[in-house]
């Protein structure tokens, strides 16, 4: 069975799976620090433009993904203002590259990540943080030694949710970076491509099974980890 398993997926399908995992992993890891920061700001601070920031963060959840992809294209494309700058100064090109797919996935997954972490931060009693400050901990230390450990379940849940969302992202990705096998063809794009050609149904079905498996595994893992960490944090 072991040999069969390796051959179960064709090279093109494997490529799509590997690329999807890579894109989703980097999308999650790179956006996590910003996600924690934004969640903290939204949960704890009062500042001018808070509602605006909240709106922008949640926009990808409401906008048609094609619109988000198009906005990315005109901003980060080679001719776009940011894209041109990145290309000229750092030699970074996002459009039609896997890095661009990661950016699109990160932006689409960001609201889910921020929501989960924000909920966790709101559940932390600020009185505990005040107690830590009277014991000599500066703001940064309070965050590192009290807030962060207490919101860890939320961070884990948010990250896994974001990872699963990034794996499945289709509309913004295909609009921004197209559907290039080995370069930007993630699992959803590959399923779409296989369904466009006669006889591609089997390949599509196998990828659909993988997509379902990854999504289910992510949900189960996030529940399990969150519960485990919550138990450790509550100390019971």
């Amino acid at each position, binding site marked *: 069975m072991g040999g069969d398993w390796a051959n179960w997926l064709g090279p093109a399908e494997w490529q799509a799976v590997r690329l999807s995992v890579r894109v989703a992993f980097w999308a999650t890891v790179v956006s996590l620090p910003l996600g924690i920061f934004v969640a903290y700001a939204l949960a704890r601070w009062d500042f001018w433009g808070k509602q605006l920031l909240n709106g922008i963060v949640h926009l990808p959840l409401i906008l048609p993904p094609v619109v988000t992809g198009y906005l990315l294209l005109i901003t980060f494309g080679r001719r776009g203002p940011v894209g041109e700058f990145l290309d000229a100064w750092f030699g970074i090109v996002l459009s039609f590259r896997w890095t661009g797919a990661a950016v699109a996935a990160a932006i689409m997954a960001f609201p889910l990540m921020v929501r989960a972490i924000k909920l966790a931060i709101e559940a932390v*009693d600020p*009185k*505990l943080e*005040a*107690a*830590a*400050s*009277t*014991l*000599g*901990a*500066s*703001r940064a*230390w*309070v965050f590192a*030694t*009290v807030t962060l*450990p*207490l919101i860890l379940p939320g961070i884990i849940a948010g990250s896994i949710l974001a990872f699963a969302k990034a794996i499945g992202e289709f509309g913004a990705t295909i609009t921004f970076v197209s559907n290039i096998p080995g370069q930007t063809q993630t699992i959803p794009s590959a399923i779409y491509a296989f369904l466009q050609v006669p006889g591609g149904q089997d390949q599509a079905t196998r990828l659909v099974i993988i997509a379902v498996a990854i999504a289910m595994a992510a949900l189960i893992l996030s529940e399990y980890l969150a519960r485990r960490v919550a138990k*450790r*944090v*509550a*100390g*019971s």
Partner: protein
Amino acid sequence: MTLRIRVQHAFAGFDLDVDADLPAGVSVLFGPSGSGKTTVINAVAGLIRPDQGRIVVDGWVLTDTASRHNIAPHRRRIGYIFQDARLFPHLSVRQNLAYGRWFAPRDAQATSMDRTVEMLGIGHLLSRRPATLSGGEKQRVAIGRALLSGPRLILADEPLAALDEARKAEILPYFERLRDEVAVPILYVSHASAEVARLATTVVALRAGRVIACGPPAQVLGDVGVVGARGAASLLTAQVVAHHADGLTELATAAGRLWLPRIADAAGATLRVRIMAQDVILSRDRPAGLSALNILQGTISDLRLGDGPGVMVTLAVGEDRLAARITRRSAEALGLAPGQTCHAVIKSVAVAPDDIGTGLRASPASRD
């Protein structure tokens, strides 16, 4: 050490305006809920910034709104014991205790972990998580955590209010030990006059954001304007003489012997006994044939009429004062007047264990 607090802060309901100069020892902010006590100590801790104020600990200015000077809470070196313990749920008891110590400057780490753990009797809890502790145990750990952060001032915000009577009785002696064995001044918030009687060296009585009385506990707790006629009490200094087989403890006071239900402290210990003014009966002649065991002799120093039918009679007994609340009719029938010698009768069982505190003049060596 001195603590100088001047705080003005406007709330929706009332304005807080407190000005107090406190000497070393335990200063108790005493008043009903909503009188502004917690706001005052939160201002001292730096957790709130008063509209106007100046807070100085031993010459060190923590807050001075006039010069926009404000030291961040984590630099104030204050050990804060909260009503709700506020232990970190994700850390063990040992890690909770070590938390403040880790941030303390090296010279402030003199308080040893072992000694603190032993003093609070929490050695068997060290590897436990806060969620598994009882309310009293949590509060003992919180005291240790505050102490080990090497504070220059300890703040306690109604640390016993969330506990039942048995747990209160369990924790109070630790605060007495803190006061007597650890040379750190304490600012303690309470609405319970029994706690004031046992712990305080100075009392600041607050009502609706204003200081209505400030002074030694014997004076403030006897002030009808602060505690009301029913709450008025006296504090007598007494020394344990002997424990008797019938369950009574014999104490010596400046005015004679006191017999009270068994007290835990050993012979020789100095105690402070709170006696409610309404539990005292007065007699011109030394009474005989009474069931009450305690008859103290004193000189009437003051007679004060209340609004109702009552009179507050104060006797001088040695250095202490003993107040008796009797009716005006009785006072007239007895012809009481200042300067007269009088006998005060107190039922032994009227004094609850709650009312007996290990005295301020007790030397640490004389106990345990």
